[in-house]
C-alpha cells in the first residue's frame, strides 16, 4: 500500500495497536475458546465417553415421539423439537412460544423429555423455559461451557453477545488496518525470523503469523460479529422496519415452511420413514427435526440434514406430517433459492470450518491458533516497545499470565468435568467452577516468579502435564478405554486422547528446550 501518506499509516498503526491493546486479552479468550469449539461436537462425544450407539436417528423415533407427545394437551403440539444428544439419548421438546416474565422475551416453553432411544424409557422430564437450562438438553457440560465461553464469555444475555460482537468488529478492524499498513505483504508471507530474542525477532514472528491470517481474521471477525449482533441488535431492528416490530413474523418469513392453516385432526405418518427418506435423499446424517402442528392437516415436518458431500450448508427437507409425502428441500432462509439465502448459508461453515469434515476443521484450528498467537505476539510487541515504563512491564506480565493461564484453566475445567461425572456431582456446575479453580495455579506463579523465562517453562509443564493426564483421568473416572471405544466404533474418543497426549509431550519438550541467547540489535527496529 505505497500510495498511503505517512500520516495515514501512522493513524492506522495507532488504531491497530490501541484496539488490540485494549481488547486484545478478551479477543484472545474468544479466539482460543473458538479454536477449541471448532471441535465442539467431537469434544462432546469424547467427554461423555460414548455409549456405543452409532445407529441412525430413524430406528425408533416414531414410537418414542408418539409415546410422549400424544398424551399432551393441544397447546404443546404447535412445535416439537427432536434431536439426539452426544450420549445418544433422544430429546423431545413439545413447546409453544410465550413471554418469559423473568427475561421479558418470547421464549420456548414446554415439557422436555430425555429418552432412551432403544427402550423408549423417559430418563428425565423437565417443564419450563427449557433453553435456559443446558443440563436439560445437552449431555456434555464441557461442550456447553466451552461454547458458552466462546459465544458470550459467560456474561449474561444480551451483554455477552454484544461484547463478543464488538470483539468481532475489533478483529475486522485489526485485519483491515493490518492489511492496509502492510508495506510488503507478499514478502512478509515468507519472512524468516531474525535470530535471538530481539525486538525485530518478535516483530518477525508477529508479521509472519499475521500475514497468513489476515483474510482469516477478517472472515472470522465478520462472521463472528454477525452471529453476535444478529439476534441482539440487527434482527430486532430489521423487524421494526420491515414487520412493525413483529419478530415472530420475520422469523416465520425467513425460516418456517409456508402452509395454509387447516386445523382438522389427522393421524401422523411414520416419522421414522420420513427421517430415513430424508437421509437417503440428501446422503448425510440427520441433525435436527421440527414438527409443526402435530396431529393436524397442516402439519409439516422439517428435517435438517448435515451438509452432504460437495455442499457447504445444511439441507432443510420438508414433509407433509399427515401423508408423509416429501415436499422438497426448502432453502435455510426464505421459500425459494436466492442470493441472500446463499450468503446466509455461508456464514456458519465459514465461521466454524464445518464444511469438509475433520480436514476443514483442522485447517480452522490451525489458523485459529495462528490468530491467537498473532494477538499475544502483537500485545508483547506493543509492551516491548514501552518496557522502560513500569506500568507497561506489569501489563506484559498480565499478558503472559493470560496467554498460558487460559489454556491451563480450560484443561482444569475438563478435569473437573470428569471428576464430577465420576463422583455423581453436577458437571454443569463443576465444569465452570473447575475453570475458575484453574486460574489459581496460573496467577500465583505469575505473582511469585519474577523472571519471565522460568515462568513460561512452568506454564508449559503445567499445560503439557494437564494434557497428558486428561485421557488417563477420563478413563479412570469411568470413560471408555481404547479397546472398548474402538470396538464400539467410537474413534473420536481415541483420536482426541491421542491428540492430547501428543500435544502434552510436545509442550513438555518445549518447556525443556534450552533458551536461545539474546543478541544485540544490529539495526533499529521498525
Amino acid at each position, binding site marked *: 500500500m505505497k500510495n498511503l501518506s505517512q500520516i495515514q499509516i501512522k493513524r492506522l498503526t495507532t488504531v491497530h495497536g490501541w484496539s488490540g491493546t485494549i481488547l486484545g486479552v478478551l479477543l484472545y479468550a474468544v479466539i482460543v475458546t473458538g479454536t477449541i469449539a471448532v471441535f465442539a461436537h467431537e469434544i462432546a462425544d469424547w467427554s461423555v465417553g460414548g455409549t456405543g450407539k452409532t445407529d441412525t436417528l430413524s430406528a425408533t423415533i416414531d414410537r418414542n415421539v408418539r409415546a410422549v407427545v400424544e398424551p399432551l394437551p393441544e397447546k404443546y403440539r404447535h412445535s416439537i423439537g427432536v434431536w439426539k444428544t452426544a450420549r445418544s439419548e433422544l430429546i423431545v421438546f413439545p413447546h409453544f412460544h410465550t413471554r418469559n416474565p423473568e427475561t421479558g422475551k418470547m421464549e420456548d416453553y414446554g415439557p422436555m423429555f430425555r429418552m432412551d432411544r432403544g427402550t423408549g424409557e423417559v430418563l428425565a422430564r423437565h417443564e419450563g423455559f427449557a433453553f435456559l437450562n443446558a443440563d436439560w438438553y445437552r449431555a456434555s457440560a464441557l461442550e456447553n461451557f466451552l461454547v458458552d465461553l466462546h459465544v458470550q464469555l459467560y456474561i449474561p444475555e444480551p451483554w455477552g453477545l454484544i461484547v463478543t460482537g464488538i470483539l468481532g468488529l475489533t478483529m475486522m478492524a485489526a485485519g483491515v488496518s493490518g492489511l492496509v499498513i502492510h508495506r510488503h505483504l507478499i514478502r512478509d508471507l515468507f519472512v524468516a525470523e531474525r535470530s535471538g530474542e530481539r525486538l525485530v525477532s518478535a516483530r518477525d514472528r508477529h508479521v509472519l503469523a499475521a500475514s497468513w491470517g489476515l483474510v482469516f481474521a477478517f472472515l472470522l471477525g465478520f462472521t463472528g460479529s454477525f452471529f453476535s449482533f444478529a439476534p441482539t441488535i440487527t434482527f430486532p431492528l430489521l423487524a421494526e422496519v420491515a414487520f412493525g416490530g413483529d419478530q415472530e413474523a420475520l422469523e416465520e*418469513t425467513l425460516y418456517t415452511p409456508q402452509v395454509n392453516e387447516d386445523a382438522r385432526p389427522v393421524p401422523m405418518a411414520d416419522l421414522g420413514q420420513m427421517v430415513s427418506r430424508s437421509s437417503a435423499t440428501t446422503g448425510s446424517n440427520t441433525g435436527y427435526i421440527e414438527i409443526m402442528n402435530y396431529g393436524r392437516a397442516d402439519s409439516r415436518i422439517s428435517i435438517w440434514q448435515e451438509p452432504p458431500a460437495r455442499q457447504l450448508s445444511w439441507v432443510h427437507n420438508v414433509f407433509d406430517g399427515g401423508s408423509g409425502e416429501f415436499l422438497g428441500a426448502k432453502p435455510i432462509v426464505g421459500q425459494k433459492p436466492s442470493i441472500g439465502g446463499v450468503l446466509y448459508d455461508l456464514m456458519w461453515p465459514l465461521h466454524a470450518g464445518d464444511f469438509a469434515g475433520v480436514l476443514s476443521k483442522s485447517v480452522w484450528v490451525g489458523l485459529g491458533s495462528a490468530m491467537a498467537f498473532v494477538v499475544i505476539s502483537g500485545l508483547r510487541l506493543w509492551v516491548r516497545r514501552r518496557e522502560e515504563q513500569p506500568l507497561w512491564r506489569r501489563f506484559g506480565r498480565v499478558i503472559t499470565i493470560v496467554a498460558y493461564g487460559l489454556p491451563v484453566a480450560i484443561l482444569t475445567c475438563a478435569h473437573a468435568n470428569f471428576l464430577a461425572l465420576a463422583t455423581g456431582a453436577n458437571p454443569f456446575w463443576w465444569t465452570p467452577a473447575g475453570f475458575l479453580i484453574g486460574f489459581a495455579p496460573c496467577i500465583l506463579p505469575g505473582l511469585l516468579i519474577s523472571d519471565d523465562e522460568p515462568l513460561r517453562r512452568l506454564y508449559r509443564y503445567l499445560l503439557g502435564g494437564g494434557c497428558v493426564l486428561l485421557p488417563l483421568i477420563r478413563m479412570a473416572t469411568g470413560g471408555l478405554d481404547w479397546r472398548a471405544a474402538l470396538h464400539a466404533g467410537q474413534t473420536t474418543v481415541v483420536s482426541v486422547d491421542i491428540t492430547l497426549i501428543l500435544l502434552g509431550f510436545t509442550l513438555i519438550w518445549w518447556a525443556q528446550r534450552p533458551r536461545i541467547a539474546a543478541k544485540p540489535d544490529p539495526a533499529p527496529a521498525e
Partner: protein
Amino acid sequence: MRRNNSLVARWLLGSVGVLTAALLFTMALPVLLPPGPAEIDNIVWPLVLAPVFWALLFTYICLEENLRRSAILLGGISVVCGTIVGFTLFA
C-alpha cells in the same frame, strides 16, 4: 489546540458517527433493496452485512484526510437513511 480538536472530531466520527450511520444504513436497506425472487433479499443482505458496513465506514474515517468531507458523508448517510427509517416507522 487545533490538532487536538481534529483528533476529538475524528474520534467522535469514528465511534458515534460510524455506528449511527452504519445502523441507519442497515435499517434503511429493507426499504431500498429489491426483495428478490424469494422476497427475503432486502432483509438478509442487511442482516448479514451489517458488520461489513461498519468496517467500511470505520476504515474510511481512519484514512480520510479531510474531516469535513467525512463528516458530510456520515451526516448525509445518517440523514437520508434516518429519514427513510423514520417515514417507514411512523408514517
